[in-house]
């Protein structure tokens, strides 16, 4: 038994915001209330800290199997736990691609042997994510996938999107789309605009994303399937989601911390500023923040994309896309959204908990009988991120050395503290 004392319980699902004790028993929440006494329980003093439902990350890359030089399930989940995440959804673009049940089971087994963070695999939509034929989605669902995606790229054709969506609606699985038009993307390395022109780097127009988002929303309307747009970075795509929601479609979306923190004007010849989708314009960044505040955006997802240092230590246009993100996500949310007065703390917690849970068709709340996944964090503790101290195998973050206000304090999964400060 674990008794979390004196924390400020913040739960979007039950609209709770008050100082209470939470008692965990086994892998379940036993009770919530003032001054709970449980003489046998281990006590965690959460005074001054927030006690929230366990954070879920809808989008990460754990690189296993196949790219263990960059990350493993073990190192990735240790990094996730430090960031306050109790569950992470890992994308299928591993080597080989997670497009069948045996690979899914392998990931689930490796995760069970790791530090305790729940790993929910996402299966490929098409075999090898090649965009030709449907992957073994039903078998992967039985093995534990929570969604499908050909992440790294969009599902190749509208026709295949339709098939995947039709099939996934009978399986009640969301289809996660990485939206980009390959012909407009064409070798680009950052967002097209004044900054790309100045740096002489090949630009990707915003429409690369929005055109694909438009296609996918249309097919979600055609099929009635659940569509989730990954790492959204443009006003155009956001407007498609806004309209789709208004029309009652089952369309959701996520935004990464780097897309609400950095913009294209921040890009310099440093490959830690190279990610896909690329950093957006100031106007798009402001629109994304507005969407995060007003509910159009359902979740903050990290798109944690570790790359071995040697692969990033190259010319900008030769480097792979992506940055790590588990350990800075909450701190960026607090620093950039809450402490700037743009967003209420409750809404930020929602974007890490009930928001992503809803995308997956799950529940996340602090109530008796619920799973005992809890994230405890400080909204105002000042700290400096040192990537050299990260348990991740990779070092590709533009936030190394940045000082934040707010950080995770303890991560509890199934009633067990898997990480504490």
């Amino acid at each position, binding site marked *: 038994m674990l008794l979390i004392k004196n924390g400020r319980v913040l739960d979007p699902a039950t609209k709770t915001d008050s100082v209470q004790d939470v008692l965990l028993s086994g892998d379940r929440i036993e009770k919530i209330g003032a001054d709970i006494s449980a003489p046998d329980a281990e006590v965690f003093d959460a005074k001054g800290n927030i006690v929230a439902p366990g954070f879920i990350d809808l989008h990460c890359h754990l690189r296993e199997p196949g790219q263990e030089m960059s990350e493993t399930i073990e190192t990735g989940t240790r990094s996730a736990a430090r960031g306050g995440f109790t569950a992470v959804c890992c994308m299928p673009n591993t080597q080989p691609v997670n497009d069948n049940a045996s690979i899914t089971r392998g990931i689930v087994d490796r995760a069970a042997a790791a530090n305790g963070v729940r790993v929910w695999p996402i299966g490929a939509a098409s075999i090898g994510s090649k965009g030709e034929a449907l992957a073994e989605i039903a078998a992967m669902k039985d093995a534990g996938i929570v969604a499908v995606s050909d992440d790294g790229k969009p599902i190749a054709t509208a026709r295949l999107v339709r098939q995947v969506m039709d099939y996934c609606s009978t399986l009640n699985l969301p289809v996660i789309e990485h939206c980009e038009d390959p012909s407009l993307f*064409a*070798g680009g390395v950052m967002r097209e*605009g*004044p900054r*790309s*022109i*100045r*740096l*002489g*780097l*090949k630009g990707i127009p915003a429409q690369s994303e929005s055109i694909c988002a438009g296609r996918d929303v249309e097919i979600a309307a055609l099929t009635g399937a659940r569509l989730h747009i990954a790492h959204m970075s443009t006003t155009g795509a956001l407007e498609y989601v806004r309209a789709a929601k208004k029309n009652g479609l089952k369309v959701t979306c996520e935004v990464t911390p780097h897309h609400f923190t950095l913009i294209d004007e921040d890009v310099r*010849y440093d490959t830690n500023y190279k990610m896909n989708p690329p950093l957006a314009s100031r106007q798009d960044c402001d629109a994304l923040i507005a969407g995060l505040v007003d509910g159009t955006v359902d979740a903050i997802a990290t798109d944690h994309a570790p790359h071995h240092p*040697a692969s990033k*230590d*190259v*010319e*900008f*246009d*030769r480097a792979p896309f992506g940055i790590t993100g588990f350990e800075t996500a909450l701190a960026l949310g607090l620093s950039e959204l809450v402490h700037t007065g743009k967003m209420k703390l409750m809404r930020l917690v929602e974007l890490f908990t009930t928001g992503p849970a809803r995308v997956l068709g799950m529940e996340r709340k602090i109530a008796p009988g619920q799973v005992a996944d809890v994230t405890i964090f400080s909204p105002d503790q000042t700290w400096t991120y040192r990537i050299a101290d990260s348990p991740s195998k990779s070092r590709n973050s533009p936030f190394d050395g940045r000082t934040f206000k707010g950080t995770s304090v303890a991560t509890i999964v199934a009633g067990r503290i898997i990480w504490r400060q």
Partner: protein
Amino acid sequence: MLQRLEHLLGIEDLTREQISFILDQAAPFQEFQKHPLKKLATLRGKTVALAFFENSTRTRISFATAAARLGADTMNLQAESSSLKKGESLLDTVRTLEAMRPDGIVIRHSSSGAPQLIADRLGMPVVNAGDGTHEHPTQALLDALTIRDRKGKLEGLNLTILGDILHSRVARSNIFLLSKFGVNITLCGPSMWVPRELESLAPNVRRVSRIDDALQNADAIIVLRVQTERLHEPAIATEEYILGYQLTPARLKLARPDALVLHPGPMIRGLEIDDAVADGPQSCVLEQVTNGLAIRMALLYHLVGGAAVEAPPAKEKPKDSTKD
């Protein structure tokens, strides 16, 4: 006070004073090219590494000759012989060169920002000899020297740049440099090669779509090479380009009568420029080549020779108000 240069990575971050200094330093080297015996001992014992990761003939020969005439030895690395082909990283290749203890390195690379990456990691002066579609600073310096010599000044001149501006490092460096001197810059070319964001690069930059309008009142015209090898972009028909943008004698008449014609080379006669213009009295093409030597000698002298003409600026002390 003049800030001493550590590297020459681009024009964008240079001050007008630093640019003027380099142009002034080039003057004696321009004279020097006329000497019968073209060898100085200034950099004797120094070694300049020439690392050309992208094919280049004229720029490489120009740097090699500049180094030789200053008395320096050169180490040559060319794309064809490069171990990059064997999978070695750029940084490892360059660190290998560094271990042979050159006193400076000249880099040509197809990736924008590659010289910056090297300058950040190595402890020696880096000269950018053209990086991707970013900058080609020595080209802009030699162009400015050529224009300044002929016109006596840069301030207030009207310059027109013709061609594929989007993919041109020559255009970027020239825009950055000349706008610092109050030159009015007009960009003209097929519209997909002249995006509106170019106007945000510097003050006094405008786009004009019709060549006849773009040439009005021009004091100098830079004709860019049409890069036919640019295969990853949708092509424009050669005939269309010639029809719309070739600099012909008739079109040249629309500019000021004494307008200069510059071309960074290699020039493709009959494509972007008509023979009569290339060989005409207004053409500065060969003068640019000679000035390129002078500029590169001045730079190597300054960067590799450690020819500190002026000391680095002292940190500005905050005014002590109690003593005023």
